[in-house]
Structure formats: structure tokens, C-alpha cells
């Protein structure tokens, strides 16, 4: 009898909602005066489908047609050859339905592809082919909806290179593996973006990092120009205005122009640049932050600058929204709070994208 009532109770429970039960809704279009505007979203750890949808709706409503999103290899291939695309389907389906173009960042080594006790950013060279499998599988599945992928993240930092000595030639080998596997996929037109270097003035021989311009030159010396379709650039402005002129000893937004010049000098003027991270922080006291009013002006100016750069395809600023508060200065990079309250910068960028006057 007890068993009967237990079964009855189970039958009476509402069916668990599958992640796809949030309706995609009708296809939308992004209305904007600047088609190069983008943001880096942070949906990797966002579990609830309605929050994914709402985030992407708000990106569209702000007037940004591009997003960059992270699709960690470790999450999507938890066992060799076993791919779990449930979360990436959710993000890409909703993004496309909102009229957004997705650039996918791929990286993060699964446990099975690296030695025990190694960092998740460490990938031994003998496992590059395994990463190639993931890249090809990703391109096979999403190549008709995701036009470009970024290979790894900030490999000029030891932190992002498995706490090993950074290695531009080694990274170029990884890039080459990814490039050739995309060529072998069902969608060989998917663009492979290399670099995504952290802007840094680390002196020669620094154990934690290599100057991004030096690293890029060494990548190009190792043949990177032949195995990428574009260069991903991180363009943080720190405390400098967007118009601050570029200089090798300064980290500012227009440092991007120095990366562009390196491509030109090395005979790769035809490679476009995608700014896949960047922006300003408006924490009240963090030493690298600017005042909120300056952040608004710098951000809009950065979008305007990139619109005028024929060699730059888009700019995705960090970061649209975090799933939960970081409770540090990092919260002051965002455009929207975790509970979807638009910050003033969101509203001002929205006004800019619509051609309206700013609030002040």
C-alpha cells in the first residue's frame, strides 16, 4: 500500500522542466547604428534557461549584434569522444533567435587530457590532437551558425598556459592543429581566430607573462599568419581615454593599432582584427578604474573608433553580466547586474546605438 501511494505521489509531481522548454520565441533583429558593437557574455555558468534568454534579449535591446561566449572543452567533452552539447545548444539557439552573431571561445582542458594535479589551462603537446577533435566537432555542429572561433585565451600569461613558461611557437602549433581540423570539418569556412593575448608590459624573461606585442611577433615568426583567419585582440583601456594614442609602453584601447601594424609589417594586412575583450572599469576606488561618467564616454568612443577602423570586424567589451556578484572590482566591468537591472552605462550605450542624446 505504501509503495502504491509513493508511486501515486510521483505521478502527481509536475514533470521536471527540460532546459529547452523555455520558448525560443520569434526571430528578432538587432536595431543599431553601429553594426560592429558587441559584448562578451558570461553564460558558461548560467544554469537557468530563462536567464540565458533574458541576457541575450537585453544584449539585443542594447543594440549590440555580436557576442563572444566561452564554450569550455572540459564541459562539452567530459569523456573522450563523448560530447554534451545541451548547454551550448541552449546559448547558441537563443543567441541566434535574438539576431546575435556568436563568436565562440574554445579552451580549458578536461581532466582526461592532462596529467593529474595539472592546471586546467595546461594542454600537453601530445594532446593537441584531442583538442583538434573538439574543435572539429564544434565546427561540425555549429559551423552554420557560429562564424568564428577563438583558439585558447591569453596564452601569453603563464596562468592561462598551465603555469608553464609561455611559448609562442607552441601556441602556434596548437593554432595550426585547430586550423586544419576546421578545414576538415563540415564547415571549413568557419574563421579561426588566434591570439586573444593579454595586454601586458611584462619585461623580458618575466616568469608570469610575455609582452603581447613581442608574443605576437614570435607567433608570426612561427608561422601563425598562415594558420589563422583573423587576430583576436584584448583591448583594455585601464585609466586612459579611448582616444589616448598608442605607444608600445602603454596599455590603452588603441594598443590594438600596434597589433594591426605588426600584421601589416609581417605581410598579413589582409587578416582582420576582432576585439574579443576590452573596456573600462568604474569601481569607486580600484586604481585601474575610471569614474563612471568617463567609462560611459570611453565605451561609446571605443565603439565609434572601431566602427571607423576598416580592418576591425567588431568589438566585444567585457562583460555584459555575471551570473552572480563577484563582490570585487570585477563587478564594475559589467553592463547589467546579476538580477538584470540595467546599469546607467547600459542605458547610455543603448541611447548611442539608437542615435539618441545621452542623459547628460
Amino acid at each position: 500500500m505504501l509503495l502504491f501511494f509513493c508511486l501515486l505521489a510521483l505521478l502527481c509531481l509536475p514533470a521536471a522542466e527540460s532546459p529547452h522548454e523555455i520558448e525560443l520565441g520569434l526571430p528578432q533583429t538587432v536595431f543599431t547604428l553601429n553594426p560592429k558593437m558587441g559584448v562578451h557574455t558570461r553564460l558558461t555558468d548560467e544554469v537557468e534557461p530563462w536567464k540565458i534568454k533574458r541576457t541575450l534579449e537585453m544584449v539585443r535591446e542594447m543594440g549590440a549584434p555580436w557576442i563572444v561566449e566561452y564554450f569550455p572543452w572540459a564541459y562539452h567533452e567530459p569523456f573522450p569522444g563523448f560530447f554534451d552539447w545541451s548547454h551550448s545548444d541552449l546559448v547558441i539557439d537563443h543567441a541566434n533567435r535574438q539576431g546575435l552573431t556568436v563568436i565562440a571561445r574554445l579552451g580549458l582542458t578536461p581532466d582526461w587530457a592532462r596529467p593529474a594535479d595539472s592546471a586546467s589551462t595546461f594542454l600537453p603537446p601530445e594532446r593537441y590532437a584531442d583538442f583538434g577533435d573538439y574543435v572539429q566537432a564544434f565546427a561540425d555542429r555549429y559551423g552554420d551558425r557560429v562564424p568564428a572561433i577563438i583558439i585558447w585565451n591569453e596564452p601569453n600569461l603563464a596562468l592561462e598556459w598551465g603555469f608553464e613558461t609561455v611559448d609562442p611557437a607552441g601556441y602556434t602549433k596548437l593554432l595550426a592543429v585547430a586550423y586544419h581540423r576546421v578545414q576538415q570539418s563540415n564547415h571549413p569556412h568557419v574563421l579561426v581566430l588566434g591570439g586573444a593575448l593579454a595586454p601586458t608590459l611584462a619585461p623580458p624573461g618575466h616568469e608570469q607573462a610575455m609582452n603581447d606585442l613581442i608574443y605576437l611577433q614570435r607567433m608570426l615568426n612561427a608561422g601563425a599568419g598562415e594558420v589563422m583567419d583573423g587576430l583576436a585582440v584584448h583591448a583594455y583601456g585601464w585609466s586612459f581615454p579611448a582616444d589616448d594614442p598608442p605607444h608600445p609602453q602603454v596599455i590603452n584601447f588603441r594598443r590594438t593599432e600596434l597589433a594591426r601594424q605588426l600584421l601589416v609589417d609581417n605581410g598579413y594586412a589582409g587578416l582582420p582584427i576582432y576585439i574579443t575583450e576590452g573596456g573600462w572599469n568604474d569601481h569607486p576606488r580600484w586604481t585601474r578604474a575610471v569614474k563612471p561618467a568617463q567609462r560611459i564616454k570611453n565605451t561609446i568612443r571605443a565603439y565609434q573608433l572601431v566602427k571607423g577602423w576598416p580592418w576591425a570586424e567588431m568589438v566585444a567589451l567585457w562583460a555584459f553580466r555575471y551570473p552572480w556578484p563577484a563582490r570585487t572590482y570585477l563587478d564594475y566591468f559589467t553592463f547589467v547586474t546579476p538580477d538584470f537591472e540595467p546599469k546607467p552605462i547600459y542605458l547610455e550605450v543603448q541611447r548611442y546605438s539608437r542615435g539618441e542624446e545621452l542623459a547628460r
Partner: protein
Amino acid sequence: MRQRAGVEGRVSRVMGRVLGFRGAFILIGLTLLLGFIVWRLYPSGDDGALAEIQRRGTLRVGLDASFPPFEMINETGQIVGLDVDLAQVIAADLGVEAEFVNIGFDGLYDALLARRVDIIISGLPYDPRWTQDVAYTHNYFNAGQVLVTCANNNAVNTVEDLKGRTIAIEWGSQADMEARQLAREVEGITLLRQESAAAALTALFGGQADAAIVDAVSGVSAFSRGLKIVAYLTDEWYAAAVPIKSQALLEAVNETLIRLDESGRMAEMQAQWLHGQ
């Protein structure tokens, strides 16, 4: 039950035969005494961090010296600030020297858990996600957003008194967000957006606004100019953090924080560092 009593009885009889009843009582007494000593030294699973700090003679303090006026590097390359002074008082109470370890904010908790530092004192907001691994001390500063007005303004004493009045705020800041929220709740509020928190306060003192919303650091800094806090609109409490098992250290730090608070010394230290920020 009966069987268990039988086992205990057999153990007593065996001990009695081996040690004699007097010897057995002495052994039990010594065990209890040893247990009491251990309990006093390392209460409730304490990791012994306080004893180790006192043996070493230094309290290793983790901070990110990029956060004035709480911690920053001065012209001579020294780390200074409110948290630095606070750490020195805590260290003195423990009978040791403070040793400062400058770490990026993102790495502070990892450094604590890896035992590279004994305590974090770094304008650290309480974060419930870390409470399985760290213990927070008593709060010592609320850095939230405050509604302020001139000290001689008797018309604005609550949020409701803002009806039909002008509020100065820093354009784009969290205060701007809070003001927009208030404007939805209280009728007839006009927002006066300025380029900075300082400019918002200047507008208040200049009579262009009836009130202002600024972060608490900016608000407390302006007390000497004749400002009063009407209400905290948000809370952002700062506390120090120690590993969750450093209970004796936690207790000792809390004793210092309470003493500083009750004696008024904490307010003096805050006034010293926040003035003119």
C-alpha cells in the same frame, strides 16, 4: 544493552586487575586533564594558527594594495592605509609584528587557503559563497550607498522626505542606479547628475540639491564639511577573513575589533584615512 554493560564491566575488571583500582582512577584523571589542556589550547578543532603565529612572531596579512584609502602604496613604496593600521593593531594585540603580502584581489582567498597568509584584511566584502572555507570577523566598515544631506538641513530626515526634492548623484554610478530606483518609488524627485561623487557633494553644499547619494567612503569623508547621513540605501560590509578552522585567531581578532569599536579608536582611524578622500 546488557551485553554492552557486560563489556564495560569486563574492561573495568581487567583494568582493576592490571593497575589496581587506584591506578585506574589516576589514569582516568590524567586523561581528563590532558583533554582539558588540549581543549583550552585548540578549542573545537582549531588548526593551531594562533599558536603558530605567536611562535613565528609575525602575522602574515594578505591584501591588494590598490584600494585607497584602505590599502595603497605611497610615494616611498610603502603599503599604507586604514587596513594596514588595523592589521598593525591586531598584530600588536597578538604580541607579534604584521607582515604584509601584496596579492591581486582575485588571489587573496587562494593565498589564505594555501596558508601563504594568516588573514585577509583588504576592504573585503562579506561573501556567503566562501563561508565553507573561511570565517569572517566582525564587520568594521559599511561601504554601501548613503543618502546624505547638509548637517543643518532639518527637512530631510527620511527617504520619504525626498518627495518633490532634488538629489545630486554621480552620473553612471551605483548611486545613479539607486536614485533611479528612488525616483520610481517617491513622487516628484529630480535627479541632478554630476561628473563625480565630489561634484555631487559640491552641488549639495552649494544649494543646487536637497540631498545627495554617494558611496559611504565619500560620505564619511565629507563629515567635516557639515554632512549628515540620512540613511544607508545599500550595505557593503567589510570584514577580515581567516581559515575556517583558525577559530582561536578569529576570536582574538574579534576581541581587538570590539575593543577598537568600543573605545572609539576605530572611528578615529577611519576619520584619519577617509578625510580628504
